[in-house]
């Protein structure tokens, strides 16, 4: 027994070193599972408040870009207004719909929450964005929600705190989203290779597809957190992969991540129903 105590005393520094390393590495490698519980809630509030102070200053330098992005989005939305369209054919016949369900009223699937970005990074390999909206401001907890900027997709919510939430940016090694070419409709996964924050990578586009530089890439119908048709980026470079039948496309991101100031969180109102239906089949795999 005495020897054990002597050993501990002699190597106390080394043991302390080992203990601290183990704690740190435990945090690091279990982050994805337990971050909501141990990491986010109290500390997220603190860092969020500090980042908010900084952002109050930084915000003024980005006003011009933010304004431009918002006005572009407004233009896009105004162009969708029904009052701006005329009926093409006045001789059209109206038929009474015999369905019990009112087919004119559409069921809302996505609800938008606006949120101010208080901190965002592009300089690391796994980048996260902190937004100033949490459970107290109506954001539902414990689900991954899609996040879009006025210009295109921005990320997905990974943790909801009381007043702040953490968003995994598109510029994160773990981020994946299913996307399609606007022209042909071919789908493939979009990810970030950690190289340049302005470019993403779209794989699995068959060589039979017609692709050209500048073509638009949108979120696809099978994406689980985004509505279809949200801008992902435009094709900047087409890499002809000789070893397979697929192209690798380099995309210019639609969102300017270094000047991100406002985002929208998309709550999927039909998520539970969809998961209930899908879960039994997923387990079978």
């Amino acid at each position, binding site marked *: 027994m005495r020897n054990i105590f002597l050993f501990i005393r002699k190597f106390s*520094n080394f043991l302390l*070193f080992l203990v601290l390393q183990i704690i*740190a*590495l435990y945090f690091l490698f279990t*982050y994805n599972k337990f971050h909501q519980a141990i990491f986010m809630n109290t500390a997220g509030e603190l860092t969020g408040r*500090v980042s908010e102070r900084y952002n109050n200053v930084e915000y003024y330098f980005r006003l011009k870009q933010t304004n431009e992005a918002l006005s572009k989005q407004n233009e896009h939305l105004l162009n969708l207004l029904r009052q701006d369209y005329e009926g093409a054919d006045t001789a059209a016949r109206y038929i009474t719909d015999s369905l019990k369900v009112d087919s004119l009223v559409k069921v809302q699937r996505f609800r938008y929450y606006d949120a101010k970005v208080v901190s965002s990074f592009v300089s690391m390999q796994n980048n996260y964005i902190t937004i100033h909206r949490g459970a107290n401001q109506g954001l539902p907890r414990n689900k991954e929600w899609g996040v879009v900027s006025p210009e295109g997709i921005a990320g997905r919510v990974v943790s909801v705190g009381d007043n702040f939430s*953490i968003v995994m940016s598109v510029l994160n090694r773990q981020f994946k989203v299913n996307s399609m070419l606007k022209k042909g409709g071919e789908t493939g996964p979009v990810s970030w290779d950690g190289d340049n924050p302005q470019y993403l990578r779209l794989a699995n586009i068959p060589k039979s597809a017609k692709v050209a530089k500048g073509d638009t890439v949108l979120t696809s119908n099978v994406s689980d957190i985004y509505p279809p048709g949200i801008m992902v980026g435009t094709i900047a470079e087409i890499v002809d992969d000789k070893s397979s039948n697929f192209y690798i496309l380099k995309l210019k991101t639609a969102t300017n991540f270094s000047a991100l100031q406002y985002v929208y969180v998309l709550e999927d109102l039909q998520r539970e129903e969809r998961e209930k239906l899908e879960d039994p089949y997923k387990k079978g795999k």
Partner: protein
Amino acid sequence: MSTLVKNTLRFILFILVQVFVLQQVPPLHRFITPYVYFLFVIWLPFNTPRGWLMIISFVFGLLLDYFLKTPGLHAAACVLVAYVRPFVIGLLIRQEGDDQNYASPSIVSMGWAPYFTLVLILTLLHNSYLVFLEWMQFGTFWFFLGKVLATTGVSLLLILITELLFFRKEKFRTNTV
């Protein structure tokens, strides 16, 4: 200013500079991430007990991690720097008793060459360990090698500039030995 107040201010300043200046700079290349924050650990006084040195570094690294959303990554690297620091200082100190005659490691107390050898070794160690932990999650060997070298180069340059801008005058305390 007392040592405690000075180091508390440094603690806060280094975190803020690292998070809101160095990490906000648009990356020149994916291999280049300028790290200066661990200079705080190098600047701690000679007579800090080794246990406390590691605990302070752990808290310091973890706070940075909370800002950058990388729990444990910088904390692990900081603790390693803190653990190795006394060994390297023991090797590089100019003459017996210099670590008691002066307050903390600096150009004045250790001399140009030994001090920068210390900084070089610890920077290289810090970056190797940090990128190694990243490499275990993704990346290739060339990612590891390139990033360690490029990041160390940029960090050393920034540390040199910091040392010249904020030159720390160290008093020679004759009555201690």
